């Protein structure tokens, strides 16, 4: 399979403090990759460098054949990265519908995402169409954030704790959605529920203190590994 995203030896800093010490990560077209690690180990930071929200200090990031270092945020996004950020970050004063419209970008491939299709995936959003995002419940906001990322018709969907705060049924819906999307687009997912990650991921990356420490298929994730790197 063709590599879509590739990170090699990425280091990154917040001001003077280093958060990433050498992350290697790659995602192939249509593949689901799970990024795992304890709190504060650098998962979000990694994802931020992928989206160019944070500039890596060293290392190389390529997406769909383009080196993204130094590119403007919006250009990187237009290469086909749809970000569902940690903490949702819906546009608070805008309505649900406007949140989706703001992100909409026509697809270069057939069967692109539209508001109708997003609302079919999350019927709750249709009910709340003209409500301000700031007054949505936490779960509703999460659905909106995913819908919004899909509206950009990405080749890679990045989900940073996308099931946080969701009711079990909805979480199952989202996992179901991820299963559905799988193959259609590549997905990089960060989540705390190992059970689900194991089912959906093609490969897993473990990171600790800003370094990739292990890569492999979920089946190879031994209890020793999870105990050592995830504490369970």
């Amino acid at each position, binding site marked *: 399979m063709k590599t879509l995203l590739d990170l090699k030896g990425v280091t990154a800093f917040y001001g003077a403090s280093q958060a990433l010490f050498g992350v290697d990560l790659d995602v192939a077209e249509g593949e689901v990759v799970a990024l795992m690690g304890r709190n504060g180990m650098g998962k979000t930071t990694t994802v931020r460098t992928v989206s160019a929200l944070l500039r890596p200090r060293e290392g190389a990031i390529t997406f769909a054949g383009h080196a993204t270092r130094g590119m403007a945020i919006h250009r990187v996004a237009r290469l086909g990265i749809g970000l569902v950020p940690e903490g949702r970050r819906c546009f608070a004063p805008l309505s649900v519908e406007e949140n989706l419209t703001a992100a909409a970008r026509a697809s270069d491939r057939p069967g692109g995402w539209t508001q109708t299709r997003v609302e079919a995936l999350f019927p709750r959003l249709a009910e709340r169409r003209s409500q301000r995002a700031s007054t949505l419940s*936490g*779960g509703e906001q999460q659905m909106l954030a995913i819908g919004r990322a899909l509206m950009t018709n990405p080749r890679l969907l990045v989900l940073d704790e996308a099931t946080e705060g969701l009711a079990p*049924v909805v979480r199952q819906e989202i996992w179901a959605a991820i299963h559905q999307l799988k193959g259609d687009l590549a997905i990089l997912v960060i989540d705390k529920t190992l059970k689900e990650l194991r089912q959906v991921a093609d490969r897993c990356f473990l990171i600790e203190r800003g370094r990739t420490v292990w890569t492999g298929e979920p089946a190879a994730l031994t209890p020793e590994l999870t105990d050592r790197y995830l504490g369970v």
Partner: protein
Amino acid sequence: MPDPILKITGLEKSFGALKATSGVTLDLFPGEIHALIGPNGAGKSTLIKQIVGEIPQDAGTIAFEGQAIDHLDAADRARIGLARTFQVSQIAPELSALKNVMLAVEARQGRVFRFFRPVSRDLALTDAAMAFLYDAGLGERATMRAADLSHGERRQLEFAMALAMKPRVFLMDEPMAGLSPDGSKRMTAFLSDLRRTAPILLVEHDMEAVFALADRISVLVYGRVIATGTVAEIRANPDVRTAYLGDEAA
């Protein structure tokens, strides 16, 4: 049976046509963890906001230790002993984690208008705050600016501040959210003991934690309590399974 420390009767709140809470009646007894679960948008956070006085209810009454507290504002309610954690961390980003917690200690003591003695030399304050940070698992990060903490670390800070208030009742809005699996495990153990200090009304979507912790569970759907009972009862309740749990009841 002892008297409930918190008793909510017939609480109503509408946003326009939407009934966020509708005739909610609920109580919390000393020493217990009462979990509140329900689908997203069911009104759980809204209920907590009403209990702490952040949004006024349309009807119904809230009693704390047998006294109606409806006339008290949010700050008053905090002072009589209602402590809350927020679903989205609320911290002072430019202060260190330690100072965030020190303020909670200071506020509990009710001594805010002190203009002369520097807080950093107030060992009673710093030591107490430090202890709460360690309880929350954040001791090593005490001097970091809160803004520089990772998401999960902020959740821990949020929790440390609630502890520092030494409240009579905890109202926790999804304390597990954002914690990694090991963090959740530690938190579960911690809460399990904490209930002896003060009872907890726990809103949580992490069913593993809820089933492990809750003495009682109430299920809120579309602003109504559709069931209250023990873990076993709720797990077996078919309505709850379809509305909320799905196949996680198993």
